[in-house]
Structures are given as structure tokens and as C-alpha cells.
């Protein structure tokens, strides 16, 4: 393959998939304004790599309402009382100071894809040439009757976006009587962080085993079986948390009764509990849904995987948990960071009239703590398959830990510190 062939292939692929290459642009890389909405694992990384891959020439603004990044990965350690939320918190100052990214502390109320403007919650409007949306997930509260009210009354909370709710959930568990029941419902996949609920069960059980040993953890899973690291988790539950954790698969929660602290299911009998951690079905972030960009069943956003451009709107790109996933692609912080790098490279190339990489790669690494020290991982490598216009896992790659280990516990913290720096510093 020679240079012409490479360019030809790149152009042909892009021509087929997005029609962007070869179309004359109004803006060059230096004059284009790229607005990134949401500075989680996806958005922060996108902004930073737009700067890095453009030799600092791209103009990048981030719209983010919070002053600090709080990591969802590792936040189950806070739920279980092993860590404080401060250990997972990083201020956003690095993006501005180290990379010249403009940080606007606000949120987006509306998007006008025709005029290429966004309306901020504060009332201000802002023009963009490229818009990158990384709003994370939305909670479909109305799928579980009474949940919104129970949340409002302070009876239930999700703690599926790390922050005050994470701390509040630990407090509920710490205040529970010995002999009490912690019940968690898990929605049908896909949802954010496939192994997250099972890791949470371990962390809550680890706390209860030491502090309230007569208590129980009930996992009420809408999925027929554990969706990630199943054999590893089940072994830990049977050995380390015998008599504490009980797993029930195939239970679809339909309603919650805040007054009686009970959960109703499609078929099975009601379950009463002292602490109710109800995770409803999840969707793309509210902004993506509201803007009409969730064009996969009104729930997730279809994107072209070479540049993560929405299939519904030109020059709007969507990364992270909000997208309709490719086969075997988890909704994880690590994956959002990897989406962001493919997206950043593609946008820099498009705005520079360069061919977009026709063969991007993604990896995923996910560590779960089964107690305060030992960890199991799942890993995968994903390659873009041009013939199918999607990412697929590379055959023979990826896999699981053979067993929990403290060595991987150290790696999990190393992963966290390096990905936080890779995304934010």
C-alpha cells in the first residue's frame, strides 16, 4: 500500500460513512470553535487531546457545571466506607492551566443544530463549529413507579453518578441496624459500568461483614444472570460473603413503595429492605435525549464510529455512555476516554483537510474491588472493521483475571491515578 492508496482508502471510507472528506469547509483548525459539553472521562479527555493532537492550535471550550471531577470508578469504595470521596476528586484547573482550554461553569439548555449555537442555562448563547457531547447517562426514573417520589423523599437514591449521593448511600448503610437488608436493583443491560453493581454488592457486604454481621445484601437483577465477571463474583459471594450476599436474576423492578420500603417486580413477590438502592433503566444523557439525538429507540445516540459524529446531526459528535454501543463495547469511563481520543484525532484531521484514520483502535480495562484490597479485571481490545462500519473485539484478545489479587488492587489505583491525569492534567 502506498501513500496514495492510504489516502484513497481513508477518503473512500469517510466518503461512505460521513461524507465529510472532500467537502469544502468553512473553517480551518485554527479558526474553528470546538465546544465540549461535559468534562467527565469522555469530555475532559476529548478537550485535552484536541489540544495535544493539534499542537495546541485548536480553540476548545468546555461547558461543565461542576468545579471538580469526581470519579465513578472506585466510588464503590466510598459506598463501602473504605475510601473518602476526596480521594476520587480532582479539580478542573489542569485543563485550563496546562492546555489553555476555556472552562465555562454552566450547563447546556438547548442546541440549535441549524444555526450551530447552544443556549446555556445561564441564558448566554454560544456559537460552535464542532460540538462534542459527553453528558454521561440519563436515569429513566419513570420506568419505576414511585421512584421519583421516593428519591425526593430521601428514601431512595442511585449513587450511579459519583458525588454527594455516593456519600449519602454510605451514610444510609452506616445507619442501618445490624440485621438489616440492603437491596439493590439492577436494570437490563446496557447500563453504565456493567460490573459496577456487583462490585457495589461486594463493597457493601465487606462493610456489613465487619460492622453489622447479621445484615444481608440482596442483588435483584433484571438480567437473567450476572452481566460481567460472573464466575469471579459468584465465587467471592459464595466464599467471602457466604450468608451475606444473595443473588436473584431475572427480577424486573416495576415500582417502589417509599412508605413500606418495598420493591415490586413484574412477576416475583415484593421485597422489603432497609436501604433501597434502586437503579432504573438508563439512557443517553438528558441533553442528548432532549436534543433529539437519541435516535436508537429514543434511548441511545447512533454515531459514525470513525469520528463519533451523530447520525442525526452534522458537526455534533457524541462520546461515552450516551452512544449506541458497538458489539462488546462496555459503557465505562475507560471506554469514554478511548472514544475521546479517536474523536479528537478525527476532528483535528477533518479541520486540517487530512484523511481521518480509517483503522482506529480502542481498549477497555475495568478493575473491580471485591473487598478493600483484592481486585479482578476484565479487559478488551476493539478494532474498527470497515466492512461493517463498527468496532469489534479483536479475536483472541482480552479476558479476565484468574482470581482476585492484591497485586491487581495496586494496579487498579495506578490505573485510576494515570487515567485521571490522562484526562485532566
Amino acid at each position, binding site marked *: *500500500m*502506498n*501513500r496514495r*492508496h*492510504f*489516502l484513497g482508502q481513508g477518503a473512500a471510507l469517510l466518503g461512505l460513512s460521513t461524507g465529510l472528506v472532500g467537502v469544502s469547509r468553512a473553517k480551518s483548525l485554527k479558526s474553528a470553535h470546538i465546544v465540549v459539553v461535559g468534562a467527565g472521562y469522555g469530555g475532559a479527555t476529548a478537550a485535552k*487531546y484536541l489540544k*495535544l*493532537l493539534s499542537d495546541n492550535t485548536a480553540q476548545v471550550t468546555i461547558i461543565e457545571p461542576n468545579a471538580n471531577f469526581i470519579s465513578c470508578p472506585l466510588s464503590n469504595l466510598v459506598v463501602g466506607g473504605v475510601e473518602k470521596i476526596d480521594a476520587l476528586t480532582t479539580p478542573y484547573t489542569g485543563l485550563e492551566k496546562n492546555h489553555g482550554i476555556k472552562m465555562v461553569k454552566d450547563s447546556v439548555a438547548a442546541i440549535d443544530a441549524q444555526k450551530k449555537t447552544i443556549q446555556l442555562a445561564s441564558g448566554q448563547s454560544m456559537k460552535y463549529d464542532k460540538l462534542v457531547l459527553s453528558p454521561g447517562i440519563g436515569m429513566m426514573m419513570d420506568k419505576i413507579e414511585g421512584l421519583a417520589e421516593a428519591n425526593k423523599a430521601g428514601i431512595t437514591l442511585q449513587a450511579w453518578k459519583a458525588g454527594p449521593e455516593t456519600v449519602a448511600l454510605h451514610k444510609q448503610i452506616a445507619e442501618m441496624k445490624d440485621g438489616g437488608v440492603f437491596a439493590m436493583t439492577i436494570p437490563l443491560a446496557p447500563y453504565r459500568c456493567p460490573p459496577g453493581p456487583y462490585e457495589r454488592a461486594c463493597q457493601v457486604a465487606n462493610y456489613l461483614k465487619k460492622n453489622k454481621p447479621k445484615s444481608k445484601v440482596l442483588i435483584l437483577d433484571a438480567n437473567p444472570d450476572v452481566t460481567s465477571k460472573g464466575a469471579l463474583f459468584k465465587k467471592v459471594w459464595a466464599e467471602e460473603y457466604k450468608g451475606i450476599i444473595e443473588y436473584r436474576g431475572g427480577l424486573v423492578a416495576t415500582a417502589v413503595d417509599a412508605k413500606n420500603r418495598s420493591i415490586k417486580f413484574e412477576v416475583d413477590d415484593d421485597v422489603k429492605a432497609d436501604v433501597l438502592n434502586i437503579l432504573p433503566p438508563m439512557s443517553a444523557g438528558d441533553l442528548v435525549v432532549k436534543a433529539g439525538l437519541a435516535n436508537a429507540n429514543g434511548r441511545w445516540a447512533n454515531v459514525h464510529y470513525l469520528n463519533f459524529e451523530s447520525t442525526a446531526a452534522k458537526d455534533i459528535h457524541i462520546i461515552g455512555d450516551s452512544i449506541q454501543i458497538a458489539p462488546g463495547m462496555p459503557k465505562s469511563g*475507560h471506554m469514554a*476516554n*478511548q472514544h475521546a*481520543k*479517536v474523536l*479528537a*484525532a478525527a476532528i*483535528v*484531521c477533518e479541520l*486540517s*483537510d*487530512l*484523511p481521518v*484514520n480509517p*483503522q*482506529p*483502535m*480502542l*481498549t477497555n*480495562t475495568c478493575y473491580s474491588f471485591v473487598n478493600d484490597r483484592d481486585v479482578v*479485571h476484565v*479487559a*478488551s*481490545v*476493539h*478494532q474498527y472493521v470497515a466492512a461493517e462500519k463498527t468496532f469489534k*473485539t*479483536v479475536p*483472541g*484478545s*482480552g*479476558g479476565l*483475571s484468574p482470581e482476585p*489479587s492484591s*497485586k*491487581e488492587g*495496586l*494496579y487498579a*489505583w*495506578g*490505573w485510576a*491515578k*494515570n*487515567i485521571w*491525569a*490522562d484526562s485532566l*492534567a
Partner: protein
Amino acid sequence: MKPHSLLRTIGLASVLAMPLTSLAQTPNAQAEKIYRLSLAATCANCHGTMGISVPRVDIPKIHSLTAEMIYDQMMGFKSGKRSGTIMPQLAKGYTDEQIKIIAEVLGREK
């Protein structure tokens, strides 16, 4: 094989076998640079941006390794000669050519 000759071999091999990395100067040198940096960036989540880890973490540091050391270790993970936790599983997801590029981008000079 001496480091220099291996590095030259890797370099030469990429020119011969890896058209994506053998583009000449001009705009396409820029596309090539972005391609190579993006590929190496798939490692950054665990090993740090451009392979430079934050201090005092327990993940093996790669920024002190030469390109040939990274290449050899990755190929060892891929073939099964070298043991590890996650790296044998990840290394199997990359082609030999991709591993060469990653090693060249992240390896320290000589």
C-alpha cells in the same frame, strides 16, 4: 542484536511494511503523526499520557524503556513468553506493526 541495529530494523521495517507510517513530509506527515500518537494514546489510560506515569503508582513504568524494550516486552506478552495480569490479554489485540509504532512513539530515545 544491539539496540541501534534493532531500532534501525524496526524503523526500516515500518517503512517497508507499514505504509501508514511511511508517508513523506508535507500534510501527510501530519496525518501520520496524528495516527501514530492516537495509536500510542490507547496505552495512556494506564501508563500515562505519552507513556509518562504520574509518580508513585504501582503500574510498571514504561517511559524509562527504549523502543526496542517496549517492542520486545509487548511481543513477549503477545506470544505468551512473558507472563502478566492484563498485558498478555491486551497485547494480543494489536498487530505486530501496531506494536512497533507504539514502541517507537513511547520508547525513550536510545
